[in-house]
């Protein structure tokens, strides 16, 4: 096979390059900066322009990093490689590899529904398509951005009017920026957990409207606050200082009541960086590919569905990607960031 799923990552022998390797390699193409896709230790990295700041922040300023715009091809030993929007988070890309007329696309993590801040997903015609399956079950049908915005705002208004702070939980890279964009016109003071504040800076976003969390900060405000923090704070004593508050958790898993109750969330917002059931099917079919490689998520179920329903040659492949982790500790927050909080 032109691409191999080996012990270190997704490997293209012809080009001598790995895509999102989970072990240090010589040459790595990074689809996006989430920690299960972008790992330390490789000799050189290739990614989209918009990923530069955040990759340097997370992997170290000293990394050897080359960046490309969308649809700008590079040739590696005869393989034509280009990046295309995946709609997942800022800078997220699908990797297209073409060699002797055969086209492969590794989509990394992707989202088909526009969210208003990320370059929207573009289907890339190909023969072989590598897809995630984080939400590859027909019970996952996500609301559109406008509905989500409205729900978030009305929840916040209701709590703020009742004199309660709103603590919103989302990953520091991706979810947090979407929450902030939904709430951009709320008049209340917004406090950012250090991990999110730093991530914003790395993304080149302005933190002008926000206050970075510091010990005792609650006392400097009279009115109820909006607090945005990563999942690691759930259940910690850190939250107590914001009493009285309501806890809103933003995740695709919030679609299920069980997940909502487990997290003790007062409210669950179904907000995800990943494609829902409909999105996955649309994306797969739009590529026109006959060969589908299903990775992280409900992969065996989803591969079976693609085979039976659409007559595609769909197989599962093992990777170490984690999709939208809800139960694991927040992989987006490093210890250093926790201290910064």
């Amino acid at each position: 096979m032109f691409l191999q799923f080996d012990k270190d990552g997704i490997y293209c022998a012809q080009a001598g390059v790995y895509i999102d390797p989970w072990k240090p390699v010589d040459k790595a193409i990074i689809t996006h900066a989430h920690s299960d896709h972008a790992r330390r230790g490789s000799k050189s990295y290739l990614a989209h322009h918009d990923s530069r700041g955040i990759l340097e922040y997370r992997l170290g300023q000293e990394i050897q990093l080359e960046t490309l715009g969308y649809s700008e091809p590079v040739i590696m030993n005869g393989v034509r490689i280009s990046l295309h929007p995946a709609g997942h988070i800022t800078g997220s890309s699908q990797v297209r590899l073409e060699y002797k007329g055969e086209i492969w696309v590794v989509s990394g993590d992707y989202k088909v529904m526009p969210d208003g801040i990320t370059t929207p997903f573009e289907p890339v015609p190909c023969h072989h398509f590598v897809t995630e399956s984080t939400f590859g079950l027909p019970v996952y049908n996500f609301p559109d951005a406008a509905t989500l915005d409205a729900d978030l705002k009305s929840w916040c208004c209701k709590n703020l009017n009742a004199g309660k702070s709103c603590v919103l939980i989302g990953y520091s890279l991706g979810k947090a920026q979407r929450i902030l964009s939904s709430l951009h016109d709320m008049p209340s003071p917004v406090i950012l957990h250090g991990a999110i504040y730093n991530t914003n800076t790395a993304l080149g976003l302005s933190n002008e409207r926000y206050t970075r969390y510091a010990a005792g900060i609650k006392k400097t405000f009279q009115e109820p606050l909006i607090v945005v923090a990563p999942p690691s704070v759930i259940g910690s004593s850190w939250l107590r200082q914001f009493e009285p508050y309501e806890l809103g958790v933003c995740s695709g898993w919030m679609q299920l009541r069980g997940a909502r109750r487990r997290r003790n969330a007062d409210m669950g917002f179904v907000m995800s960086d990943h494609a829902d059931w409909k999105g996955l099917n649309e994306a797969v079919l739009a590529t026109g590919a006959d060969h589908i490689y299903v990775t992280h998520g409900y992969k065996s179920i989803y591969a079976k569905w693609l085979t039976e329903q659409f007559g595609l040659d769909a197989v599962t492949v093992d990777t170490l990607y984690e999709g939208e982790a809800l139960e694991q500790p927040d992989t987006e927050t490093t210890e250093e960031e926790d201290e910064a909080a």
Partner: protein
Amino acid sequence: MKAFTELYYELDATTKTLPKVEALTRYFLRTKPEDSIWAIALLVGNRPKRPVKSSDLKAWATDLAGIPEWLFGDSYSVVGDLAETITLLINSTSDKVSEISLNELMRELGAMASLTDAEKKERVLGYWKTLAPQELYVFNKLITGAFRVGVSKLLVFKALSKAYQIEEKVIAHRFIGNWKPTDTSLLDLLKEDEFLDATSRPYPFCLAYALDVEWSALGRIEDWQIERKYDGIRGQIIVRNKELFVWSRGEELLTDKFPEFEELKYDLPDGTVIDGEILPIVNGKIRSFNQMQKRTTRKALTKKILQEVPLKMVCYDLLEKDGKDLRDLPLQERRRLLEEVVTNSKACNSSLVLAPLLSCNAWEKLDQLRNEAKAVGCEGLMLKRKDSNYETGRKRGKWWKWKVDPYSVDAVLIYAQAGHGRRANLFTDYTFAVWDGDVLVPFTKAYSGLTDKEIIEVDAWIKKNTLEKFGPVRSVTPHWVFEIAFEGINESPRHKSGIALRFPRIARWRKDKPLSEANTKEDLLNLLHATQ
């Protein structure tokens, strides 16, 4: 339906008691009594029979969602709740608010039982295609299985009490026993002047919390009545109008199961209610709970079984005498009257036995009394303040139970299965094994005991260490040892290991213990023989 849906979501949105009671109270205040009675029935678990088979619901939903049957099955096992699975698969985009009242809907569902399958399908699909997501979910809850929203009876009664300005204790009493929402009028039920109108009605049981305070908080030991804690069926024996009723704590009427008590209706004076524990006692010795189960699960009571496992009631409280409610009298006084009633009865020391009072002059010596419990077939001690009234439900402070420490065994996790509801999509139902030579033999399942954090940790480990999948069950690499606590051990031909545990649960995750140090089957058999 609209108001009930709002109530459902309000209850679901919080884990705190106060907002739940407030939501319930608001609901009762703004809802007609004929709807409220249904809400009460649904919330306290007195729900009517399901009108449609769940296999039919699955088939119709699968069809409507345009997915194959196996995919419905896989979705269901991830979601862990049938009503929720169907709701998510239908993915309604309607924003209509339905006009139908809860009473109308429940009566329509009740009448559905007599329709043909095709007519049932048409009705159900009619709702599925028009209801907005939240109402659709609640509708599906109503036509499928359990209806749990973390509301206890006590909370419902508390709210009713606030809404209708009637004492909580009275409300709890009115709603105990058999009543059907189809033929019960809430107002009539609440209006009843005399609680004795319903001849068979028991009193809500007074329950104790497990002792979790220091002796010093209890004051003087002389102020406490000390009894043994029995491991039988808690029940009330009621004699009114020359009729006998035997109720279990689960509010089941079990009169027919206990012919031993038949004679009491001529023996005890009218208007007598005794609270106690029904137990198999032979020659003054309490037999195991296992034997009791043999009796109670048997459909036909033969002479043989009646002789083999004769039951008695160990009486410890008197709730009504000469038709008068005694619950507000101090325990000491109730006990005096109880002794009078029991000793005056012909059944005294045959089917009725007075619970012996234990004496102890210092808290420090109580532990010894507690430890004697197992030897006499009991579970531990009950501590009841001598001046305590008979409370409704579980209250802290006046009654405590102090059980003996459970048995425990160190066992190896070998199988796991995903849980339901709050634990859906997480491996939380475990099967444990002990060593038999160099083979691990499964002997018990346990579901509870781990913290949420531990559950997540075990779940992640299971997902990475699965050996084989058999349907929903996974076998895992034997690696972790858990301490399993249990209340009793019995022989069981139905289990592969030949033994059955009573109330097994996980006491601790023994990360410190290597696999080889788990207990053996022999250890269990030795324990079995020692306890018999």
